[in-house]
């Protein structure tokens, strides 16, 4: 057996690693550098303050015929819109995927391959095809969801649920495999729990880590997505549209925004790890 690697092959390994790291970091570093060059001849955070600034009078509560609306700078209003879409998607997809996967695990194990196949479809079908297909089908009668604001939002949430299905399904599927759902279900049932109670009070709490990591991926997608949201809300109120508009119209701000979204995403990843560590208790149960 060859346990010692030759200096040459070791050099090659390191070189490949270095290339990969460079490939990922160089664009980020140049973006960062660029984002600091708004003021001539000196480095500054001007681009960031431009993006994040809340000028006086820009936040305003207004009474209109359609109710009370909150006006704020576009960075915040678009972020708020996309965060809302993300939260709704998390709620919707959890509500759909957890009970379905649970039931298939418990009662219909033969359907597991079917579920897995469906879950990877969004990977196999190009995003634009999915988007156009969804639009074609649900914006026309008999659904005609796009006729109302709520219907449009429902379509957006439904679309995002499909986009993130490969991640959410996999995460929840793994979570269900990690606990003995059959016996936990029986135990809960014998103590008087109906099916809804079993899912809500026994299964879901034990899928905490799985649901949270699925949620964060969902979040990241909801914040960055452009194609579907731009079709559904052409008034560019989403964060994705805002990013795109900035990219078209400004010079330094898009670079700053890139860094900001990058940090937002990292914050989410750190949060995932934090939560996962907090609950990964050694299991003392006997298999």
């Amino acid at each position, binding site marked *: 057996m060859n346990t010692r690697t030759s200096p040459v092959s070791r050099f090659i390994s390191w070189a490949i690693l270095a290339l990969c790291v460079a490939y990922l970091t160089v664009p980020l570093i140049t973006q960062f550098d660029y984002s600091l060059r708004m003021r001539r001849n000196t480095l500054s955070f001007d681009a960031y303050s431009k993006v994040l600034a809340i000028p006086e009078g820009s936040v305003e509560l207004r009474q209109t015929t359609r109710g009370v609306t909150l006006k704020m700078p576009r960075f915040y209003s678009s972020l708020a819109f996309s965060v809302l879409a993300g939260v709704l998607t998390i709620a919707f997809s959890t509500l759909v995927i957890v009970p379905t996967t649970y039931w298939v695990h418990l009662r219909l194990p033969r359907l597991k391959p079917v579920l897995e196949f469906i879950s990877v479809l969004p990977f196999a079908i190009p995003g634009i095809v999915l988007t156009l297909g969804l639009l074609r089908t649900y914006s026309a009668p008999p659904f005609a969801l796009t006729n109302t604001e709520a219907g449009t939002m429902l379509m957006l949430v439904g679309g995002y649920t499909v986009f993130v299905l490969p991640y959410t399904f996999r995460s929840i599927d793994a979570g269900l495999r990690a606990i003995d759902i059959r016996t936990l279900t*029986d135990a809960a049932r014998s*103590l008087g*729990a109906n099916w809804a109670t079993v899912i809500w009070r026994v299964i879901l709490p034990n899928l905490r880590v799985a649901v949270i990591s699925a949620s964060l991926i969902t979040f990241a997608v909801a914040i960055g997505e452009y194609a579907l949201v731009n079709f559904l809300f052409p008034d560019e109120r989403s964060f994705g549209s805002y990013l795109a508009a900035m990219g078209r119209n400004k010079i330094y701000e898009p670079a700053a925004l890139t860094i900001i979204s990058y940090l937002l995403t990292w914050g989410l990843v750190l949060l995932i790890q934090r939560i996962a560590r907090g609950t990964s*208790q050694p299991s003392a149960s006997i298999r």
Partner: protein
Amino acid sequence: MAYLQLTDLRKSFGSTVAVEHFSLDVAAGEFVSFLGPSGCGKTTTMRMIAGFEMPDTGRITIDGEDITHMPANKRRVGMVFQSYALFPHLSVRDNVAFGLDLMRMPKPDARKRVDEMLDLVQLSIQADRYPHQLSGGQQQRVALARALAIQPRVLLLDEPLSALDAKIRDELRNEIRRIQLELKITTIYVTHDQEEALALSDRMVVMNAGRIEQIGPPAEIYNHPRTAFVASFVGTQSTLTGALTESRDALNLPGGQTVRFGTTLTHRSTGDSVTVHLRPEIIMLGEGADERNTFRGIVAQVMFLGSVVRLLVRADGHTLAADILNNPALRVPQIGETVAVHFAAEACHVL
């Protein structure tokens, strides 16, 4: 009238018949155990009582109420599992309170009940721990407290001790019986450990291949097994098979030796193949008096079991297990030594 009544239950999975012709009446407060080899349908029967499986045919009643098709969560039947099945995200206290909470019992009452239950299983000081912080034995106590908290009409235990160490197992076994007697709760206990079943039960149900072989109190099952399966499954047995003699109170072994048994088999005819079953504790070491059956053979194995020493003696092509009570002065025969063993005709169990 029986409290828990199972009438002609049958359950199949596809082409496998897991249980059939299962009828049993259990009195209120009775402790009945199901004993049998792996796959004989013990768990399936229990799951039908719990409502996790629906029988194909047959009826289940508790206290006169037909619960055959009642959903599991309406039955108030407590269950304890081999794998404990505690809710990992809840503390000991919340695990025990789970069922009470679903019953919408007022908080102060529930708290009181939980305290009583934890007291009963001697876990009060661990009340705020989580399942993963407890030993297996402690987890199973919590599971017991949780099942008992809802004051179930019937308590079901499916091999609750199988995952535990021998020492803890004995301790918890006694505790389960103590609590059962204290609460007078009707209990079904599944096990494949015959010693456990013999030690705990008011009555035992011995099962084989989905059917009941025999129902009776432990002493009756042990001393008067009704089928060859029960005789060989419960307790260690030596068997001698031969042809019935003319007097029909003895058999001739193929080797020529005659074995007398205490009874006359009036319903069998001369020359029939007959088997006698012998418990190791009735076979003694040494030359027996004339009226006893004596065998001479070679010691094939010596097993030191603590309170007894078990000898396997090979005689005439048969292996006889003989237990001798242990004491420090005992001279244990060596492997290969020639010994005589004897047993009384009345001690033979003929099937």
